[in-house]
């Protein structure tokens, strides 16, 4: 059945994930799990962006902005102490409803902060609403105008993060508490929880992949591909292209925001660099390398490149590496690295030589 065929790679992915975890366990290299967890979250951003760029045909040079909206809001809400505002109407209401949490801070003081689930929902919803609001006008633009507008959006988010005291200015937000997803499962950076957090992250990746695969193979996915293939004709066939482009934009923004929330809780904090242009460029580079409409390509590249980067393999050349990758891939393999079929290229080169030979011998005779 077609359906099962579609999910086989997902099962494969799951198996690989489990195997890697077991391998690190037995080779005493569990420290790798941290980077693998982070890479997983970044890859969620990447595959969302991949669908936007590949199927929606829209470039976004500001996607780190959505990641930051998610992460910063979740971080700020779960760390800022509302104790002094306890008497305030809204705060006491939230408290009564159970959305606030008492805890003890670093210095033994009592804290009253927002419950992580509530913070998460607020953060992701905000990102979605913002995407909905700016998506309309932004997606009317084409080419460089679109690129610049998304770049501008990312920069504004970065500047807000950098300039606001509420968001910790240049230092960002730290001391972000763990996030208890369900009883017994907590999202946090503590060493003991490394394995469970690894699975939380990869669980999110698997869910994201399944949702996106489903989308691509659905009626909506076909409509998206048609927009990419010939937008005017798609309109003529009854597809509301503007709305679909908007929805996929919002969807990819939401993916990025959720990843941002989870990374913030995992790392215990977030800084303005997560909103920066270089991060956005990095995401675009990974999608470009993996192949714009190729989820698996984007995923693989996302894992590999992020893992290497996080392990410090690129050293001080980190940004440069992504720049080089971007340039080389765009110059030589704009369809993405995994679409290069060396066998195909050889065959067509051979065919080319054959016809040239024929022409030359025809001329000589």
């Amino acid at each position, binding site marked *: 059945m077609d359906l099962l065929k579609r999910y086989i790679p997902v099962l494969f992915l799951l198996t690989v994930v489990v195997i890697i975890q077991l391998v690190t366990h037995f080779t005493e290299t569990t420290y790798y799990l941290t980077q693998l967890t982070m890479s997983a979250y970044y890859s969620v951003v990447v595959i969302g962006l991949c669908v936007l760029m590949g199927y929606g045909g829209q470039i976004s040079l500001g996607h780190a902005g959505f990641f930051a909206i998610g992460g910063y809001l979740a971080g700020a809400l779960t760390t800022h102490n509302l104790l002094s505002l306890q008497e305030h109407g809204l705060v006491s209401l939230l408290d009564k409803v159970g959305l606030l949490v008492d805890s003890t801070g670093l210095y033994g003081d009592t804290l009253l902060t927002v419950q992580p689930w509530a913070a998460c929902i607020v953060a992701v919803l905000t990102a979605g609403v913002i995407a909905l609001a700016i998506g309309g006008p932004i997606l009317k*633009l*084409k080419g460089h*105008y679109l690129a610049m507008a998304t770049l*501008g959006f990312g920069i*504004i988010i970065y500047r*807000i993060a950098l300039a606001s005291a509420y968001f910790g200015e240049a230092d960002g937000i730290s001391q972000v508490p763990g996030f208890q997803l369900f009883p017994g499962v907590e999202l946090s950076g503590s060493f003991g929880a490394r394995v469970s957090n690894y699975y939380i992250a990869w669980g999110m990746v698997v869910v994201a992949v399944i949702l996106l695969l489903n989308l691509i193979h659905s009626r909506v996915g076909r409509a998206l591909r048609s927009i990419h293939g010939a937008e005017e004709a798609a309109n003529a066939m009854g597809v509301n292209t503007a709305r679909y482009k908007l929805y996929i934009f919002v969807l990819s923004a939401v993916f990025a925001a959720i990843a941002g929330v989870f990374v913030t809780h995992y790392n215990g904090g977030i800084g303005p660099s997560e909103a920066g242009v270089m991060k956005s*460029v990095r995401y675009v580079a990974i999608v470009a390398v993996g192949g714009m409409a190729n989820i698996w390509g984007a995923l693989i590249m996302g894992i590999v490149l992020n893992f290497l980067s996080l392990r410090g393999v690129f050293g001080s050349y980190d940004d440069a590496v992504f720049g080089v990758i*971007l340039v080389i891939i765009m110059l030589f393999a*704009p369809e993405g690295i995994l679409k290069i079929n060396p066998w195909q290229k050889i065959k067509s080169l051979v065919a080319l030589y054959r016809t040239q030979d024929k022409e030359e011998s025809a001329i000589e005779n």
Partner: protein
Amino acid sequence: MTPELFIQYLFAGITYGIIYAIVAIGFNIIYNTTGIINFAQGEFVMLGGMIAITMHSFMPIPLAIVVAVLITMVVGALIEMVFIRWLESPSVLRMIIITIGISILVREVALHIWGESVRALPYFIGNEVTSVSILGARISPQVLWVIGVCSFMVAGLSLFFKFTSLGREMRACAANRRAATLCGINAKNMVTLSFILSAGIGAVAGCVMSPITYSDYSMGPNLAIKGFTVAVIGGLGNSIAAVAAGLLLGIIEAFSVSVLPLAFQDAIATSLLLIILFIRPHGLFGSSDLASLKEF
């Protein structure tokens, strides 16, 4: 606001404004000939200043500037020849990503050559406290250098494009590349020339502004965004409007410090960019029909 303060702000605005205009004109020259937005435009300005500073340790300022501008022009030509020249009708998306990648590369190279330190060329006349009195306000002569040199470049460029045969050939290429080729104009060389020209004026701007604004490896992107904003406000490709738009942005930014915290000054340009893109992407002086007619 005292009249002196007003004049101060005004001159600050004009100074930065005309720099933004030069960057915008750099964008326009390349855009007109190729349809490409060269994201690395800001890097040309950076290179001009940084190279001049390094050269200045071996030679007097004027010579250092000349050498710096020449080297930057060569870099511009190299970028075009290595990355752009041989591409067959690339898509807009592809070009955007390539030029972003190029700007990152140039920046990283600069980082590894000069490190993160912030330097400056010495003031051309006197030092940071020298000033002349204009309409009651104390203005640094460097400001006059910036305004003077950049205005000279703008004037020179208009004369070049209007009256020299080379300039006319570039305009022909910009208007209709295929027709220009049919007339015997070597379009590929025109493209390289446009990069050389953009790099050159960027470098000059980078040199004259260095004493006032300081130079460091990461100054490019900020200038590029503002330059692009200015180019879009004036209408992509329209360099006269770019000057007006540049001055407008510069002055708005300068006067904004009296109402907004300094940290938000940079956000003004970005916000203006978004506003203009949402409301009138073809710019204040452009026309949408004209923009859609442009073919490359």
